[in-house]
């Protein structure tokens, strides 16, 4: 395998990881601040993609589609927080898991009821379509490159938001000591709604961005949701830095594992079997990674609290 | 010394730059109550954690009946004869008082992996449990849910569970806290009789109780033992008066 191909594959892993980060960041924030396990986060991803597809279909503008995705997911997130999630903060994880599982059912079938059972169309905008040639002669899709850039910018923005702004201070305080922020005179209810909507918006953005190169359909959120959980658990629940590191780890493991494991297997067995066994191992790779991390560090790489 | 039951030798523990235990050596002998006192933040809790095994010391060792238990986990120390009561009650709040005490009996009897005989029909366990309850005066509330007990009653329950272990040594973390004057007095009387069964390492803020019970007192300030001796010696130690007792006496 040539070096150029390897570099291209690393870029692919990076792009996948960065998109996972958008999902995982919201998930980990919500867990960190409110102590909530939100299985319905994948539904917000789906809502983002559907909003984008609907608006892009109506207006033809990708920028408007992204705005719609952000707004749609944020509004859905805020609504759900106020109507349902709010009542779950005090409850144990078990109730949260069940209630948010119920939300998945409602969102998925609701979306199917509104948009039908067939996938929706959402495409890469013309300005970003097609490949570009990178230094060294690598041809790489421009859109994916853009995704990496957008993801890294959002990550940077999140770090700035949390380290520099007033709401960031409140979020950090909330992660450390819930009673403290009440003592600081912060309206906790409002803070929680904002954090939830922020997480939802990030998920919606990810859904719209990824939807352009994938299939916009009901149920698209759950596989990503599970991966995002793997990410935040590897990184340590509640840690944005952990989410970023975990997302890149998972992205790279997933992409590179899929390429190298079959090759490695070919050293031991005949090609046809190796391809199949290697592919099976590759599909289990990230879960093996996660189990290994947890066995060595039971609270993840950057996690403090249990 | 043959009659030493529990001993720490040169315990050191740092949390980053903060030294919470500095070379702590102390002994607990047969038949005595050895009180450890000191201001808040002096490192009393960390000391107890190390003795009971929830925190590992950086240096130094802990001996229980001449056996080095420094590397042993909590449950092994308990099995070896160390009974502990907690500062903040650690009880199964949803269970009844009796069940909590029986839990101690189960641990002591090694019956934890019996899967079939209902625990509340095991006569041996029940007898031990009832005796323990009677001794601390909780017999009347045996069937009550633990969550419904008063703060003082939970203290008593902690002691009752410790009794079921028939330990070689007690480590008690503020057993008087929240008891009130009357309860405190009764607990003091009870602990006074208990020392004959097994010696008590007592961490306590209630100075009346300490002076009434302790055979020896060690004073812990900023992670170090600054003085150790009989009640009289400590009362008259100028260093102690200055560092600690001064404000309270």
């Amino acid at each position, binding site marked *: 395998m040539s070096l150029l191909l390897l570099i291209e594959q690393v870029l692919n892993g990076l792009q996948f990881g960065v998109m996972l980060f958008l999902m995982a960041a919201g998930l980990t924030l919500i867990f960190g601040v409110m102590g909530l396990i939100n299985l319905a986060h994948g539904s917000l991803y789906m809502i983002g993609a559907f909003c984008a597809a609907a608006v892009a279909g109506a207006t033809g503008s990708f920028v408007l589609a992204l705005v719609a995705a952000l707004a749609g997911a944020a509004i859905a997130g805020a609504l759900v927080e106020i109507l349902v999630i709010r009542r779950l903060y005090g409850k144990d994880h078990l109730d949260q898991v069940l209630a948010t599982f119920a939300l998945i059912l409602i969102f998925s079938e609701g979306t199917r009821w509104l948009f039908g059972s067939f996938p929706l169309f959402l*495409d890469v905008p013309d300005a970003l379509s097609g490949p570009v040639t990178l230094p060294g002669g690598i041809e790489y899709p421009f859109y994916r490159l853009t995704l990496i850039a957008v993801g890294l910018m959002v990550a940077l923005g999140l770090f700035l938001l949390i380290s520099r702004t007033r709401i960031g201070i409140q979020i950090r305080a909330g992660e450390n000591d819930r009673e403290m922020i009440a003592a600081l005179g912060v309206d906790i209810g409002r803070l929680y709604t904002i954090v939830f909507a922020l997480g939802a918006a990030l998920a919606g953005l990810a859904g719209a961005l990824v939807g352009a190169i994938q299939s916009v359909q009901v149920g698209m959120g759950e596989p990503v949701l599970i991966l995002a959980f793997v990410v935040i658990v590897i990184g340590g629940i509640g840690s944005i830095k952990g989410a970023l590191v975990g997302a890149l780890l998972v992205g790279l493991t997933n992409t590179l594992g899929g390429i190298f494991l079959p090759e490695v297997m070919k050293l031991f067995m005949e090609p046809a079997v190796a391809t199949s066994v290697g*592919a099976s191992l590759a599909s289990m790779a990230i879960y093996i990674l996660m189990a290994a991390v947890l066995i060595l560090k039971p609270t993840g790489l950057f996690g403090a609290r249990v | 010394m043959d009659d030493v039951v529990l001993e720490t030798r040169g315990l050191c523990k740092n949390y980053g730059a903060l030294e919470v235990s500095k070379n702590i050596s102390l002994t607990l002998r047969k038949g005595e109550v050895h009180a450890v006192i000191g201001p808040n933040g002096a490192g009393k809790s960390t000391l107890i954690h190390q003795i009971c095994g929830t925190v590992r010391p950086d240096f130094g060792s802990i001996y229980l009946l001449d056996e080095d238990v420094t590397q042993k986990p909590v449950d092994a120390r308990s099995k070896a004869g160390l009974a502990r009561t907690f500062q903040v009650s650690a009880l199964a709040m949803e269970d009844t008082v009796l069940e909590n005490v029986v839990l101690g009996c189960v641990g002591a009897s090694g019956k934890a992996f019996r899967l079939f005989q209902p625990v509340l029909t095991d006569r041996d366990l029940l007898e031990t449990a009832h005796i323990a309850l009677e001794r601390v005066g909780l017999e009347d509330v045996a069937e009550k849910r633990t969550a419904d007990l008063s703060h003082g009653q939970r203290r008593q329950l902690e002691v009752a569970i410790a009794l079921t272990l028939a330990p070689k040594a007690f480590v008690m973390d503020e057993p008087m806290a929240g008891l009130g004057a009357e309860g405190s007095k009764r607990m003091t009387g009870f602990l006074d009789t208990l020392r004959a069964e097994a010696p008590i390492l007592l961490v306590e803020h209630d100075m009346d109780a300490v002076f009434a019970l302790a055979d020896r007192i060690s004073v812990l300030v900023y992670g170090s033992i600054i003085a150790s001796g009989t009640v009289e010696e400590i009362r008259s130690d100028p260093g102690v008066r200055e560092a600690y007792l001064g404000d309270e006496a």
Partner: protein
Amino acid sequence: MKFFSLAASAALALGVVSANAEPLKVGMITTLSGGGAGLGIDVRDGFMLAVKQAGNENIEVIIEDDQRKPDIAVQLADKLVQSEKVDVLTGIIWSNLAMAVVPAVTAQGKFYLSPNAGPSALAGKGCHPNYFNVAWQNDNLHEAAGAYAKETGYKKSFILAPNYPAGKDALTGYKRFYDGELAGEIYTKLGQTDYAAELAQIRASDADSVFFFLPGGMGISFLKQYADSGVDLPVVGPAFSFDQGILQAVGDAALGVKNTSQWNKDIDNETNKAFVESFQAEYGRLPSLYASQGFDTANLLLSAMGSADVNDADAFRAALLAADFSSTRGDFEFGPNHHPVQDIFVREVIKEGDVYTNKIIATAMTDRADAYAAECKM
């Protein structure tokens, strides 16, 4: 108690019970909710359109949703057989669900007509006199793709499919008729939606063509990313990723792609024309491959009903085997293992006005049966 009996009798029933004759009861188990519901809905709509057009009062169809879960499908089959006492079952979309349901159902003496799934086990050693496949054996469309690749003169194909039995069958089927070299052979994760890594491998290889089998959302994702990757090799695939329901979501990315199918809306015969027209009129959308299969399945059944009584199993079986109905595909007959012997076409994706659809450009295989018929003993 009341609850149970209520539940058992509250199934959706269509058709009118005729006064003198006991109507033939058909149980349809198909996927109507959750992922993949689009396919089940098409099969159901195609089937019911034929039933409606026939105006036959002696047929009663009970439709159940399997949610694409094998255990639910088995449970529904039990219900239809035990409580509803149906004579014929049909409707299942997915091979794994078919494998869960069909052997047990046929063992109980019921007829099963498959409108879609055709796993190799049921075509070969596990064939059964009461099992008829009206669509295709699973390998067929892949074989046709391989034959087309050979015909076109591709010498180095890069082939990929998900890592599950149908995926392996697909690659095997393609290789059965394709005789060039392989530039690469990849099994992807089932449900995978990002194919960047595979596309990089395709680009890095010296392939002259790409064959893929990625049903549902996987195929949509692959095609969009393929179009965006700058790889410019000809693509061949089975019809599943270029179906009417899916194409609109793929858009321009699919234009020009060759795919193999036993049906298309432009097959020139009266039945097909009427079917396409009436389906559009009834449901307001173009019919899909699956709809045509549902439609044919119903017509096969109706034709058998016309000449035999379902209670006389042997006669009814013979009537089914005769396949005396006019198919949307034109010629239609069954082979000895009760799987179709039919022509398979090559289609190209085109745009008609605003709608993406297919047109037939060639015939890949004529009178193709399947590779497993010889193993079938019945």
